[in-house]
C-alpha cells in the first residue's frame, strides 16, 4: 500500500471507529446525563447499569489487546502508540480527581458530550465549549507551571 493510500485507510478507520463509539454511547445510556449521575449516586438509589458499559467495553477490548500482543505492528501503521508508563504520580491522580468533580456536576464526560452535540441542547454545547477551553488553557499553562514547580 502506498503511504497515501494507507493514510486514507487510516482516516476511514478513524471515522468508522468514531461512528461506532457514538452509537455505543447512545445505546448504553451514557448520553443521558441524569443516568450517569444516577450511576455516581452510590448512596441513594444507585443505578448500576453503567458498570455494564465499562464491563462490556473492557471485555471486548481486553481480548483484542491480548490478540494484538503477538503482532509487531497495527495493520495500517508502523507501530502501536500506547502509553507504557506504569508508575502513579500526583498529577495523574489530581487530574483524575478534578475530572471526576466535573463529571459528577454535569453528568457528561468528553465522549458523550461530543456525541450529544447534534441534539443542539444548550447544556451539551456549553459543556463542550467549556471543556475545550479548559483543555486548551491547561495545555498552554502546563509547561509554565511545570517549570515553576521544578525551580528550587
Amino acid at each position: 500500500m502506498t503511504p497515501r493510500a494507507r493514510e486514507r485507510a487510516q482516516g476511514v478507520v478513524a471515522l468508522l471507529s468514531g461512528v461506532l463509539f457514538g452509537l455505543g454511547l447512545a445505546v448504553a445510556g451514557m448520553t443521558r446525563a441524569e443516568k450517569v449521575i444516577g450511576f455516581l449516586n452510590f448512596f441513594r438509589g444507585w443505578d448500576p447499569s453503567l458498570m455494564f458499559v465499562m464491563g462490556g467495553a473492557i471485555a471486548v477490548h481486553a481480548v483484542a489487546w491480548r490478540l494484538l500482543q503477538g503482532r509487531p505492528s497495527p495493520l495500517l501503521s508502523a507501530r502501536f502508540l500506547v502509553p507504557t508508563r506504569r508508575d502513579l504520580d500526583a498529577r495523574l491522580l489530581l487530574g483524575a480527581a478534578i475530572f471526576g468533580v466535573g463529571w459528577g456536576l454535569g453528568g457528561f464526560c468528553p465522549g458523550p458530550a461530543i456525541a450529544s452535540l447534534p441534539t443542539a441542547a444548550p447544556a451539551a454545547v456549553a459543556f463542550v465549549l467549556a471543556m475545550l477551553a479548559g483543555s486548551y488553557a491547561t495545555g498552554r499553562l502546563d509547561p509554565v507551571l511545570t517549570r515553576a514547580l521544578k525551580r528550587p
Partner: protein
Amino acid sequence: MDIPLDWIRALQGGALIGLSASLLLGLNGRVMGISGIVGGLLAPSAGDVAWRALFVAGLVGGGLIALAAMPGAFSAGSASLGMVLLAGLLVGVGTRIGKGCTSGHGVCGISRFSPRSVAATLTFIGTGALTVLLTGGGAR
C-alpha cells in the same frame, strides 16, 4: 431471573465501544481516548490532525444517527447553564492534567491492565460519586 433491559443495553453499547476501540488500536495503532484525541486537535502537529478530526466527525455522526433512531437516548440533565460551564471546564482541565478520561483510562487503559488507568478510574469515579453526594443527587 429477569435482567433489567437497561443492563442489557449497557452491555450492548459497551461492546460497541470496545469494538470501536479495538478497530482504532488494531488498525491504526491508536488509543481511543477522547480527551486525548480532542486535545491533539487543540495543539495540532503536522500529519496528526486528519485522523483525529475524522474520529470526532464520526462521533458526532454516530450521535446524529442515534438521535434519529432513538431520540430518547439523549438528555442533557437538569444542571443550570453556569453549573454546566463549570463542569465542562473542570472536565477539560482534569482530563488534560490526568491525561485521559472515561474512554482512555476507563476502557482502553483498564483493558491493558495499566495500573495508572486503574488508579485514575477509581479516582474519578470516587470524586464523581462524592460530588453527586454533596450536591444531593445532581447539581442544579
